[in-house]
């Protein structure tokens, strides 16, 4: 009995690769497994190779895996592209004239079984040519002895509107798959251990971010479509109206942030979501939110840059722009959830931070985290409490008894009580110009100094609940990996492997708050160790960030990947080994 399975379906875009993958993933989820997935696709609508990768384990797993146990090929490219990562004794399912089973070897000499099946013909015979992928799913499921009922009940759900005939032909297709396996390759069946029962969700980083935002009271999102962020807008445009909120797809990304700033100014928890090109366009208005002290959440789902770059590929290369972008100097907070559950919690926290500190909060996702689904423990609604900061009620505003409310009142903590437009006695001025306490333009040098200090100091100690994740033995480890975003799972697994192989004694910090960098907390952990950042960009932006705060220059380096794909454990391990051998 096995407790892990790696599965992939590949084919041409528009051929149902996505839905086939998603269905198999959900089947495994419903069976009780922890599932991580990764979709690869191209910047076109039809055609071009795409694939959907799944790794399922009976314990929590954060990474969709390097290898493949079952490979479902809907086109020729699939096998060519992925043959080299097949695990030993993998099964490859492919279309062919007649059913046959052959054994082949990977370039590295691992044996695998090629199961050729006339899927199209069988589906046609079943009276439903569309059901060919279902046969293949049946084969897949039967190879690990998943209960057929799960697939069958999904089929009932998915095709509920299509009628009994479609349901039945699809069910038969699955059954046929089971039969084909039993008939031809029963020696390959390797049953999955029954997992223990868990309360978990199968959700993408985008969905978790959107869900967390909604739960934190966000009621307005204005944005412009862009891969890989569109899903956030799409999910919220479905769900927000149910709670009295709304999504606006506006004319461009500048409007995206400006609408959200306006809505936030009027008292709503508001956000905008985008990816690189949109983030760059928002750069000017980001500064407006900063100086005018309007809370705002900006989700940046990173993709391959620069410019239009690689719009459907993974990258983590907007770090510096998020921290330093916009002219002049503003208060800001930059977060970067490590996992999908962190995306939920940090999205929620970002609204708190935005309102408590009255400043823009940027939440960095990356394509890997944004678009791929994983199984996560159901979220804890008690973990993040809603905190609206110094937002005043109508009654509180009245007590100030001012004709023109001092919106930018100087206070000890730099944060000013905030009335809302519409409140009696709360009439106030908000401004992108340098202003005095009343919000009116001021060019007075002394006022300027006060206002700059107010704004830039107030966020200095802002801190999210978990500014970074630490693992490994900080006292004894001689190498410290530092990462952010969706590399979490790969780094964890790489360390496990490296430690097991006895290559290094490694520890791991995964940063979740990039700005203000929690340097006081990090500093003791950085002492004395070899530091290796693992990041999906060319310049080693995380490394540059760390160097700015800590003089680690002679013992720090980075492992980078910027080809549009996520790291594999294999490639991290390889690069670490090279790094180490080179040092000796």
């Amino acid at each position, binding site marked *: 009995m096995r407790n892990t399975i790696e599965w992939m379906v590949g084919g041409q875009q528009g051929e149902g690769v996505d839905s086939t993958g998603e269905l198999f993933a959900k089947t495994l989820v419903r069976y009780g497994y922890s599932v991580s997935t990764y979709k690869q696709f191209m910047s076109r609508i039809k055609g071009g190779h795409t694939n959907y990768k799944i790794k399922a384990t009976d314990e929590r797993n954060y990474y969709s895996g390097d290898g493949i146990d079952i490979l479902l090929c809907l086109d020729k490219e699939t096998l060519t592209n992925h043959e080299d990562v097949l695990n030993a004794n993998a099964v490859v399912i492919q279309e062919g004239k007649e059913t046959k089973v052959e054994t082949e070897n990977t370039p590295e000499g691992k044996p695998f079984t090629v199961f050729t099946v006339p899927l199209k013909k069988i589906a046609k015979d079943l009276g439903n040519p569309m059901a060919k992928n279902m046969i293949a799913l049946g084969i897949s499921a039967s190879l690990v002895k998943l209960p057929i009922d799960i697939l069958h009940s999904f089929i009932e759900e998915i095709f509920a509107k299509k009628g009994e005939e479609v349901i039945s032909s699809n069910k038969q297709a699955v059954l046929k798959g089971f039969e084909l396996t039993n008939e031809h390759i029963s020696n390959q069946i390797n049953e999955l251990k029954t997992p223990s029962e868990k309360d978990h969700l199968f959700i993408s980083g985008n969905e978790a971010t959107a*869900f967390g935002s909604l*739960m934190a009271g966000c009621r307005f999102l204005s944005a412009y479509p862009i891969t890989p962020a569109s899903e956030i807008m799409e999910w919220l445009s479905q769900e927000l*109206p149910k709670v*009295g909120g709304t999504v606006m797809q*506006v004319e461009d990304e500048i409007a995206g942030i*400006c609408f959200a*700033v306006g809505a936030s100014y009027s008292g709503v928890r508001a956000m905008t979501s985008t990816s690189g090109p949109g983030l760059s366009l928002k750069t000017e208005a980001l500064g407006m939110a900063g100086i005018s002290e309007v809370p705002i959440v900006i989700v940046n789902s990173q993709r391959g840059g620069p410019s239009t770059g690689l719009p459907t590929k993974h990258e983590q290369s907007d770090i510096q722009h998020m921290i330093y972008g916009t002219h002049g100097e503003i208060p800001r907070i930059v977060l970067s959830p490590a996992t999908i559950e962190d995306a939920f919690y940090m999205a929620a926290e970002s609204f708190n931070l935005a309102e408590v500190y009255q400043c823009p909060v940027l939440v960095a996702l990356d394509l890997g985290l944004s678009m791929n689904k994983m199984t996560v423990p159901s979220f804890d609604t008690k973990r993040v409490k809603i905190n609206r900061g110094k937002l005043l009620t109508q009654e509180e505003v009245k007590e100030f008894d001012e004709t023109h409310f001092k919106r930018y009142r100087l206070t000890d903590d730099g944060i000013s009580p905030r009335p809302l437009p519409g409140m009696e006695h709360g009439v106030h*001025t908000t401004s992108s*110009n340098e202003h005095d306490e009343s919000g009116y333009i001021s060019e007075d040098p002394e006022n300027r100094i006060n206002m700059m200090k107010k704004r830039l100091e107030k966020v200095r100690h802002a801190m999210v609940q978990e500014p970074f994740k630490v693992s490994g033995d900080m006292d004894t480890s001689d190498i410290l990996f530092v990462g952010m975003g969706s590399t979490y799972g790969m780094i964890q697994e790489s360390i496990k492997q490296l430690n097991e192989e006895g290559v290094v004694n490694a520890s791991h910090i995964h940063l979740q708050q990039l700005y203000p960098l929690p340097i006081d907390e990090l500093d003791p952990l950085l002492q004395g160790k070899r530091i290796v950042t693992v990041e999906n960009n060319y310049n080693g932006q995380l490394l540059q960030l760390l160097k700015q705060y800590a003089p680690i220059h002679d013992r720090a380096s980075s492992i980078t990947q910027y080809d549009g794909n996520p790291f594999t454990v294999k490639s991290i391990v390889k690069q670490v080994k090279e790094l180490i051998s080179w040092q000796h």
Partner: protein
Amino acid sequence: MATLKDLRGDQPTWCPGCGHFSIMAGIQKSIIQLGYEPHDFAIISGIGCSGKVSEYVRTNGFHTIHGRSVPVAQGVKMGNPDLKVIASGGDGDGYGIGLGHFVHAARRNIDMSYIVMDNNIYGLTKGQTSPRSEHGFVTKTTKGGNKEYPVDPVSTSIANGATFVAQAFAGDIKQMTEIIEKAIEHKGFSHVNIYSPCVTFNKINTYEFYKERLTKFDEPFDTREEALSAVRAHDGLVTGILYNEKRDDYQEKLGIDFDMQSCVSGDMDEELFHKFKKQFQ
């Protein structure tokens, strides 16, 4: 009831004689005459001499960035449907850098007013050609005369679905104030372009220039076609409400039972969580 004093904000720094003074007064008067209080309003302005109006009229004000008053203002209205929202700014702000937002706002029809202080020039940056400057207009950057033709703002908003389009003149405060009042009371996006002479940099489009040339229309045209033709026939030199149509505004059309502001500090809503959670299981 609010008085003029209540509506006075910061001390204006405009040049003596600037048309913007009259527009400020027109907005103040309209608010008073319609019986509103300063806190009922939010004036969202752009950057320019004109942009300062949000600090000079004492309502809630947001002095935003160059060209973005209109998207910010729409967001404000979306966030609080009870607020009266005015966006305001210059011709450069609104028809130059902000032109796209303006057209999209016209077709979106959110309930707000957009008052443009059109002096056919960039005032605050000291007198460069604006997208409203006449063909042939001479400035620092167009010594040989402007080679472009001006944007036609009222035709553009009429053609793109604005439900209230008017034009006024800072030299005729009475008509202007009447128009602003109607624009404020109009449900939907109202666009008011106001000729507002820049006495310092624009020696062509002066008070006299407009006094001599403007044709006043007392009634809106029945159709967009007629309004468009009239505007073109007079080369844009018209005043009055040009077009006015009743139509559900954007928020009404959404048909949402808005509940945007009720979020309070404290626990997340557990029940809501479970409702939404289901789809991920």
